[in-house]
């Protein structure tokens, strides 16, 4: 009985949590949030793809 319960629970692990005082967050959620912050900051500072139409309009 216990073995079947444990095997059923096997695909779902407890996961790893980061804890700072009252704040607790799983590694997965933490990675997603950090990724969003990095992407947001990069979107503000990285230069955009050059407009190809500039080549067709010299002096524009």
């Amino acid at each position, binding site marked *: 009985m216990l073995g079947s319960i444990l095997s*059923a*629970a096997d*695909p*779902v692990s407890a996961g790893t949590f980061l804890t700072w005082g009252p704040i607790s967050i799983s590694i997965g959620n933490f990675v*997603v949030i950090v*990724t*969003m912050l990095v*992407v*947001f900051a*990069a*979107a*503000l500072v*990285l230069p*955009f*793809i050059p*407009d190809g*139409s*500039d080549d067709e*309009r010299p002096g*524009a």
Partner: protein
Amino acid sequence: MSAQEPDATGWTGHARRWLLKRLPPDKLLPDDQPSYVASWIYVFGMGAIASLVYIVASGLVLSLNGPAWYHVSALGRFVNSTHLWSVELFFLTMVVHLWGKYWMAAWRGGRALTWMTGVIAFLASIGAAFTGYLLQTNLDSQWIAFEAKDALNAVGVGAWFNVADLGQIFTWHIVLLPLAVGAVVALHVVLVRMHGVVPPIDAAETDAQLSGAHGTVLPPAAAGPQESDEALPVPVGSATS
């Protein structure tokens, strides 16, 4: 077919005239965009829509083949996984889009309804994602359901939204919430086309990027009067385009 057509009679004619005035075809499907759109911060809305298109397409495949396929076969598990990861990408791009629009106060210039439809789309998407997690039919989904059950009962919707009723949650996930998200996102996009893409805050007053004033270099296609009017914080319907 002009917005000023005098022979528009009946409710269909009035509706056509109203629609053409609010959303003429050149606004709905423009040939060009304002110069300020050439920034990475402006790509995330379309990124979210692209993700949503894949979510709906993969969801259709999953629903047509059924759980016996996507829980067992290799291809089914693969499509199921891409359905999940496209949702992750959808929320990532939508949140970055939300941050970008929040910090540029995107509700300016009569765009309050555009902002609110975005809020509703976000909330409906959370519901759709939540019901998707409930459909994993494993211990994880059971755990999530009974964590949420008390909260839903506490706000008084437990009788209509029963997380333990798999059939009901299936209907919410593959019919009601996708229709809601799709309709609200479609309205959101139409409103963006009606009012134009919101300009950066520092371009809102003088609109130098659009008008070409102050020596700003911009492609000729972006300097048209239509975008110039759209970008100014004016009431809905007062644009001269």
